C-alpha cells in the first residue's frame, strides 16, 4: 500500500470524536495556515475535518413543490408562482420550479430564483393554475396566496451545482457583453470569474475520495445531501459537478438568493458547504490546496462559439484572479469574482460550528462519484443554413475614387441599398448605403472615399445565419459584405435576403 493511501482515521472514528465533543475541525483557510506553519504531516495528524464552502450563481437549481389538493380539486396543467412558470409535467399538484424560469410579466428582473428566495423568506406568493378539468379533478382554474408553510413539500433538487472550478471570462470584441459571467467590457476591459478556489468543496477533494453519493452537506443554510454527480460532470478536465437535494423549509435567505444577470436571465445563488474528513495524507494535501495552486483558463466570450471552443486567452490561478488584476501582454486587466468569497467563508465557518456543536455528523459515501468522463457537445443533425446559402453572390462593388453621382444612379438602376467599396486588389475598403449617398449628394460631396464607412461589419460564408443576424441587429445595420479570409468581397447578405429566403427556419423554394 502506498504511504498516502494509509488510513489516518476513519469516518466512524471522526463521528465518535464529534459525539464526545473533541473533534478537531478547521475551515479550509485555517487548514492552509496550519499546513504552512506546522507542515502537512502535523496538520494531517491533528485535524479530523476540514470544512469548505461556496456561494455562487447556480442556474441548474430548482425546487419540487407539492401544493396539496383544493376543494373541488384541480389537475394543474399549467401553473405559475408570482407569474413565473412552474413545470407541470408531473402529477396533479406536484410541480418543479426552476431558478432560471422567468416571470411572464417582469422578465429578466424576476424569476424562479426570486420565488425560491421569497418562499424561503416566508413571504406570500401568488399561486395561479389552469386545467382542462377531469371527472376526478373538475376545477379548471385556481388563484390563491401561499407561503412555504402551506406547501406539503418544498424540496430543493439541483441537477448541477458546486462546480469544482470554472473558467474565467473576458471579451475581445468592441462592445459591452452582458453574459452569465456578468458584464464584460470591450477590448479585454475586465475579467470575471466564479468559484471560491481554495474554499471550493470539490477543489478540496479533487480525487473524490470522501465526497460521493449520500454525502451529508450544508445546502442553502440547511442540511442536504449529494444525490449523484451533477449534469455535465467533467472529472477528466477537473470540472466535477454535484447533484444535491435538501429540504427548503430548513433553509435560509442568507444562503439562497434570487438573482438576475442583465440581459441574460435569472438564477439562484446557492450556498454549499461540504465537510472533508482527513482520512489519509492525499486528502490532507488536497484539503490544504491554496488559490495559487488552482488553475483555470480565461476564455474569450467575444467569440460567439460553443463554450468549450471559446479561445483561451491565458491560464491563470485563483490567486491571480482574486488579486484584482491579471496581466495579459503588457496590460493589467481588472478582475473580479461573481461568487461571494465572504459568504463562502461564512458557510465554511457555519459548517465547522455545527460539527463542533455535535449537531452535524459525517457520512461515508454509498457510491463514489465517477472519476472519468467528460460531457459531449450536441451534434446538430441535418444541415443548417449558413451565410453562404442565402447571400447574394452577384455583388456590385465600387472603387474609392468613384464619382458619387454615378454610383448613386447605379444603385437606383440595380435596386440595391448596400455597396461595398473595394480597393485595387479587390479587398474590402469601406461601405456606402443609399442613405449615405443621398446625404452626400445633398452636401455636394464628390468621391466615395470622402463618405464611405471604413470600419465595416462583415460576415464569413461559413458563419451561422443566427450569429450574423444578431450581429446586424446589434450594430443596427441592414446588410453585411461577406468576405473571405483575405478580406476579398465574395457576396453580400442583407436583412431582405434573410426575410425573403428564410421562412419558418427553412429556405423558401
Amino acid at each position, binding site marked *: 500500500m502506498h504511504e498516502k493511501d494509509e488510513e489516518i482515521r476513519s469516518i466512524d472514528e471522526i463521528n465518535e470524536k464529534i459525539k464526545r465533543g473533541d473533534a478537531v475541525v478547521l475551515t479550509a483557510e485555517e487548514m492552509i495556515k496550519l499546513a504552512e506553519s506546522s507542515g502537512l504531516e502535523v496538520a494531517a495528524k491533528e485535524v479530523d475535518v476540514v470544512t469548505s464552502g461556496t456561494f455562487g450563481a447556480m442556474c441548474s437549481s430548482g425546487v419540487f413543490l407539492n401544493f396539496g389538493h383544493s376543494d373541488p380539486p384541480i389537475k394543474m396543467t399549467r401553473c405559475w408562482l408570482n407569474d413565473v412558470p412552474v413545470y407541470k409535467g408531473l402529477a396533479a399538484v406536484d410541480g418543479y420550479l426552476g431558478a432560471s424560469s422567468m416571470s411572464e410579466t417582469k422578465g429578466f428582473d424576476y424569476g424562479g430564483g426570486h420565488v425560491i428566495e421569497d418562499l424561503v423568506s416566508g413571504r406570500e406568493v401568488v399561486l395561479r393554475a389552469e386545467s382542462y378539468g377531469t371527472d376526478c379533478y373538475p376545477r379548471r382554474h385556481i388563484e390563491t396566496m401561499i407561503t412555504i408553510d402551506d406547501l406539503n413539500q418544498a424540496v430543493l433538487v439541483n441537477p448541477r451545482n458546486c462546480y469544482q472550478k470554472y473558467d474565467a471570462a473576458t471579451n475581445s470584441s468592441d462592445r459591452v457583453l452582458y453574459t452569465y459571467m456578468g458584464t464584460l467590457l470591450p477590448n479585454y476591459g475586465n475579467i470575471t470569474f466564479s468559484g471560491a478556489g481554495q474554499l471550493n468543496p470539490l477543489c478540496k477533494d479533487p480525487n473524490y475520495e470522501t465526497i460521493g453519493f449520500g454525502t451529508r452537506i450544508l445546502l442553502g443554510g440547511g442540511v442536504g445531501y449529494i444525490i449523484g454527480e451533477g449534469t455535465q460532470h467533467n472529472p477528466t478536465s477537473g470540472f466535477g459537478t454535484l447533484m444535491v437535494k435538501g429540504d427548503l423549509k430548513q433553509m435560509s435567505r442568507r444562503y439562497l438568493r434570487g438573482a438576475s444577470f442583465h440581459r441574460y436571465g435569472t438564477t439562484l*445563488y446557492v450556498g454549499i458547504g461540504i465537510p472533508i474528513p482527513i482520512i489519509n495524507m492525499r486528502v490532507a494535501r488536497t484539503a490544504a490546496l491554496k488559490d495559487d495552486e488552482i488553475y483555470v483558463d480565461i476564455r474569450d466570450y467575444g467569440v460567439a462559439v460553443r463554450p468549450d471552443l471559446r479561445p483561451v486567452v491565458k491560464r491563470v490561478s485563483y490567486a491571480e484572479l482574486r488579486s*484584482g488584476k491579471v496581466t495579459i501582454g503588457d496590460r493589467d486587466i*481588472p478582475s*473580479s*469574482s461573481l461568487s461571494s468569497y465572504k*459568504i463562502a467563508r461564512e458557510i465554511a465557518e457555519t459548517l465547522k460550528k455545527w460539527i463542533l456543536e455535535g449537531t452535524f455528523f459525517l457520512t461515508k459515501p454509498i457510491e463514489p462519484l465517477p472519476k472519468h468522463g467528460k460531457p459531449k457537445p450536441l451534434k446538430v443533425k441535418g444541415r443548417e443554413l449558413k451565410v453562404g446559402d442565402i447571400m447574394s453572390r452577384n455583388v456590385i462593388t465600387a472603387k474609392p475614387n468613384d464619382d458619387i453621382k454615378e454610383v448613386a444612379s447605379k444603385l437606383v438602376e440595380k435596386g440595391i441599398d448596400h455597396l461595398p467599396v473595394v480597393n485595387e486588389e479587390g479587398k474590402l475598403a469601406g461601405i456606402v448605403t443609399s442613405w449615405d449617398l443621398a446625404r452626400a449628394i445633398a452636401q455636394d460631396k464628390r468621391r466615395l472615399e470622402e463618405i464611405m464607412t471604413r470600419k465595416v461589419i462583415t460576415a464569413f460564408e461559413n458563419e451561422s445565419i443566427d450569429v450574423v443576424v444578431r450581429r446586424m441587429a446589434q450594430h443596427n445595420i441592414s446588410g453585411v459584405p461577406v468576405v473571405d479570409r483575405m478580406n476579398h468581397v465574395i457576396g453580400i447578405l442583407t436583412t431582405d435576403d434573410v426575410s425573403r429566403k428564410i421562412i419558418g427556419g427553412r429556405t423558401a423554394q
Partner: protein
Amino acid sequence: MRVKLIYSHSVVEKPILASIVLKTGIPINILEARINAQKGELIVSIPASGEKLEEILNLFREAGVKVQEFIETLRIDWEKCIACGACISPCPTRALRFREDWTLEFIEEKCVACGICVAACPVKAINMP
C-alpha cells in the same frame, strides 16, 4: 466636489464653464451633460474645496447658473449586497473594491455615476438616485 449646474434659457449659449476653467485654472470634469437650445443641466466634478470651491461656485452663480451641491452618485442597499464582486471589475474608475474582509467598499469620490454597476449587480443592490 460634485455639483449639478442648471443653465436657463438666457445663459445656455454662453461658454460659462470654459471661461471659469480658464479664469481659475481648475480642471472641472463634466460627468454628465444634457443641453439643448432651451436649457441645460451639467453634472460636474470640481477638484477643489474650501474657499477655492466657494469662489468657483460663486462665479457660476454670478453668470446666472443655478448650482445644486452634493449630488449623490450611487445608493447601495447593504442589506441586499452579497459581496459577490460582479460590480467591481466593470467599474471604469475603480470606485468599487473589496475590503480586507471581502466586503464591498464604495469610494464615492472616484465615482462618475456611469451606471454600469447598476446593470452588473445580480441582486439589484445598487441604484442611482
